[in-house]
């Protein structure tokens, strides 16, 4: 288990660099990072499933509003996908998904807090760069650039490692304690989560003016399906 979590944290840490720091070409987004992690651990379908779900739900802001939520979304995506896949290496656990998604919320929150800390660390790094430049050491700029990236990686690595480890422990504890009835409830919740995903994106796009597009598409597709 530790080995898997280490792999997850390493891959996750690297992918998370794309979230804000380097390029933002979307490989950190759950829709892409999910299948990638699924592929690595041999369970592509679950990776895709969880990734899709998270991508839809977290299209907007994270609980702690403010700045760009990219890093939070990236890290919670990697966490949730990793948690579900690694937990299920021992066998499918129905009802795990909603728990993983909910725990992901906490990870996202922590990630945002961490991002603020990194921002302050970078303040100090930039002051250090100022001193380098004053001494005509221009290579200092490159050095500090890579140091900052390493810090981001370390933060992401640690967050994923610790939260996945704790998450796995929590889930095995949880699923030993609860009865089958509760598990049934979780399964039903799992089926309803995609609706939340669709609703969030709908809320993002919909205005009074273009609501009709949604409605017409809905009726048309419904008609096509029933015929």
């Amino acid at each position: 288990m530790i080995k898997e979590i280490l792999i997850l944290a390493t891959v996750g840490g690297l992918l998370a660099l794309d979230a804000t720091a380097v390029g933002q070409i979307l490989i950190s987004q759950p829709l892409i990072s999910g299948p990638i992690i699924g592929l690595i651990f041999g369970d592509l379908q679950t990776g895709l499933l969880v990734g899709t779900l998270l991508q839809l739900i977290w299209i907007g802001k994270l609980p702690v509003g403010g700045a760009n939520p990219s890093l939070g979304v990236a890290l919670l995506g990697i966490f949730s996908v990793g948690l579900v896949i690694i937990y299920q290496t021992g066998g499918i656990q129905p009802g795990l998904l909603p728990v993983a998604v909910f725990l992901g919320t906490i990870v996202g929150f922590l990630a945002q807090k961490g991002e603020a800390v990194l921002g302050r660390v970078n303040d100090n790094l930039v002051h250090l760069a100022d001193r380098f430049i004053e001494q005509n050491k221009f290579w200092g700029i490159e050095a500090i650039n890579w140091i900052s990236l390493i810090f981001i990686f370390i933060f992401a690595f640690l967050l994923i490692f610790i939260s996945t480890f704790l998450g796995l422990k929590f889930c095995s504890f949880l699923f030993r304690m609860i009865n089958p009835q509760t598990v049934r409830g979780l399964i039903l919740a799992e089926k309803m989560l995609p609706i939340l995903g669709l609703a969030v994106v709908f809320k993002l796009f919909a205005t009074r003016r273009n609501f009709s597009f949604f409605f017409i598409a809905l009726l048309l597709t419904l008609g096509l399906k029933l015929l």
Partner: protein
Amino acid sequence: MIEIDKQRKQIPLFLLITVFLRSFFIQAVWSFERLLGFGLTYAILPAICYLHRDKAKRKLIIEEYLSCFNTHPYLAAPIIGVLISEEEKMLLLTHFDRGRIQNLKVQIMGPLGALGDTFFWATLRPFAALLGISLIFLFWDKNKFVALIGGLLSFFCVYNLFHVFIRFIGFFRGYHTGIQIVNTLKKINLQKTARIISALGLILIGGGVVFFSFSCSLFDIGGLMNLGSVYNFSVVLILFTVICLLLSTVTPAKLILGLILLGEFFALF
């Protein structure tokens, strides 16, 4: 057209490309104090080092670039292009007037910053995600591999086509045409494009709600309430509406918890 001033010392192409690639790292060292200032310095450093052999001048210029710089990360690329061309021109002037470049920098960073955020992150990305996901679901039953690759590639390509395109074209246009780039960029009516994309997105959601309730083998929903397709659809629609209404006041995190509790409630039957 491109005017090549033969007396002007020009940055060689490979250096320009280096700067362009470095601009992807513009948020690597984001700080509260200088925001994107360090990233700007990191990106433009090769150009400055090439143009100024004199270390004293170099130091002055770099210290200047390390100051606060606030704009949208993708649109920093055009700005850097403009700045490089200005730096080149500066070499021709007899007096060393840094003020002009500073003013230019501050002038463009505002309007360009406003253009980017909502369009890329809050409109294009969700739409590309919806498109990719819709493609995956539509073709999942026919050929899983094609569905997956097709869907993910759509997500990746639709977004990055706009993303990298704007950075690339913006950068080289900014370099060749200077400050005109601001007018050019203002002409791209991002708001209209955003509205079109939103409308398309809504169409996908409309179809998505229906497809979802009539099930697909990826999200095995066939058994929700065990009541057959049309009742399924009604339940889904009701839930959808309720959640949409709730989203104005409740955060998605609490709604996830809410759905778990709702599931528990339904499990009682």
